């Protein structure tokens, strides 16, 4: 499927999606957190999109908001899509887990929780993955400070 037809198809599902193709080789779509799980489920199950391969799940600290970027690919049609979602609640950010759609998300979401502190609702085992349980703060956030271990050039 071309990006154009993907955009048309997905755009018809919900009015709250924003599409963007600038500065990226993939089609980007921004999804509001409330609709994330439904849209994602559709993306995987819809026969025309069939985006069954979540090849990258990254947390991003956009400065104000905390977001997650999902890179999806269809192993059948070989088209790709980037789904972005973000939340402006830095104290207690909560997004929906997609581990039930793509099993690999379980580990990736734990990694994002570990480094960005984004909580994923419905996640079966959301706890620190790399860091110790007692670790304070979320290191990959831009406002994280650690005067002992971090050397800023």
């Amino acid at each position: 499927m071309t990006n154009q037809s993907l955009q048309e198809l997905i755009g018809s599902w919900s009015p709250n999606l924003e599409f963007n193709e600038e500065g990226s080789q993939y089609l980007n779509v921004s999804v509001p957190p409330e609709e994330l799980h439904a849209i994602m489920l559709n993306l995987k199950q819809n026969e025309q999109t069939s985006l069954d391969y979540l090849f990258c799940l990254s947390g991003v600290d956009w400065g104000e908001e905390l977001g997650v970027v999902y890179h999806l690919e269809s192993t059948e049609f070989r088209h790709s899509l980037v789904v972005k979602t973000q939340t402006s609640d830095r104290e207690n950010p909560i997004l929906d887990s997609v581990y039930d759609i793509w099993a690999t998300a379980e580990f990736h979401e734990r990694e994002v929780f570990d480094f960005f502190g984004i909580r994923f609702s419905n996640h079966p085992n959301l706890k620190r993955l790399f860091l110790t349980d007692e670790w304070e703060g979320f290191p990959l956030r831009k406002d994280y400070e650690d005067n002992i271990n971090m050397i800023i050039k």
Partner: protein
Amino acid sequence: METTTLNSNFKSEEYFINMGPQHPATHGVLRLLLTIDGEIIKKVEPDLGYIHRSIEKMCERDSYQQIVHLTDRMDYLSANINNEAVCLTVENALQLEIPDRVKVIRTIIGELTRISSHCLWWGVMGMDVGALTTYFYGFRDRELLNDIFEETCGARLTMNYNVPGGLMFDIHPNFVKRVKDFIAHFKTKLPEYDRLLTDNIIFQKRTKGVGILSKEDAISFGASGPVGRASGYSCDVRKHHPYSALDKVTFNEALKTEGDTFARYSVRIQEMWESLSIVEQLIDNIPEGEHRVTTKAVIKLPKGEFYQKVETARGELGVYIISTGTKSPYRLKFRSPGFSNLSLLNHIAVGGKIGDLVATMATLDLVIPDIDR
């Protein structure tokens, strides 16, 4: 983790052991929390982070040239391919035209790296199932490759040979001859690998029908590399998204459908043959030309998001750079193959015995720094 909370979840006959972080089969500092019933595995829970160096955070303060050398330290067995991934991302973002010579050399070295990584894996795989001698035979052949790398790149493991814009220096005059010698040597040794280990009845009994991963699960768990291909899932980035000179060569994607440990093993053995054939196709045709395009001393990527995937020895490595136009990336994420491959360990190891877990883990070919980054 407290023992009390664990005990309350246990049935009376189950118990819990700690495999790692210092355990011979985990090849590094991976810790597996195993729940076992007798010999049968009920649950595997990986505990990571023993060698986490926060490379992604370090990248946010480093220049693009400096990032490359950090990737050596992720999946150190395919260091060159990791370097290439970052360089390709930066070059694509800058829209640099890379000379053909560079592309071909990168591909040759990448495939040699893959062979070298698989040699080590083969040795270690044998060791994990108890045949200690394979370890030395695998290392013997890998040593020749390391010498080739050392002569050209100056280092045996963490080469840092690629720079954004090309290669740090041209190949050594002996390179072509040495590679040809290696190909001739290795073609006589690969059948020996089969005779010693692959055909062995004990080995086949140990691996066939163990740790089965279906194609649907492979895709869902984001398996890539030999792990995915053994389940019949065609996921070779070199085929689907060719980079460097890989669009100029013909090779078969090693595919198996069984999805068990033996299939993963055979895929890797077959990949060594394929890599040899790729190198053979290219080694005589290295085009003349520059080995490097001059870039600015301070590379600034345009504003935007860039993603590049390459096929390392372990699977699909993704480099995701978000740039705001400064000299360092705003966010850099490495999608490491080992991390996704590890996430399916619990899925395929449950129900097997301890010995099965070790064999399965060996064919996942985990490199812990790649997972921990």
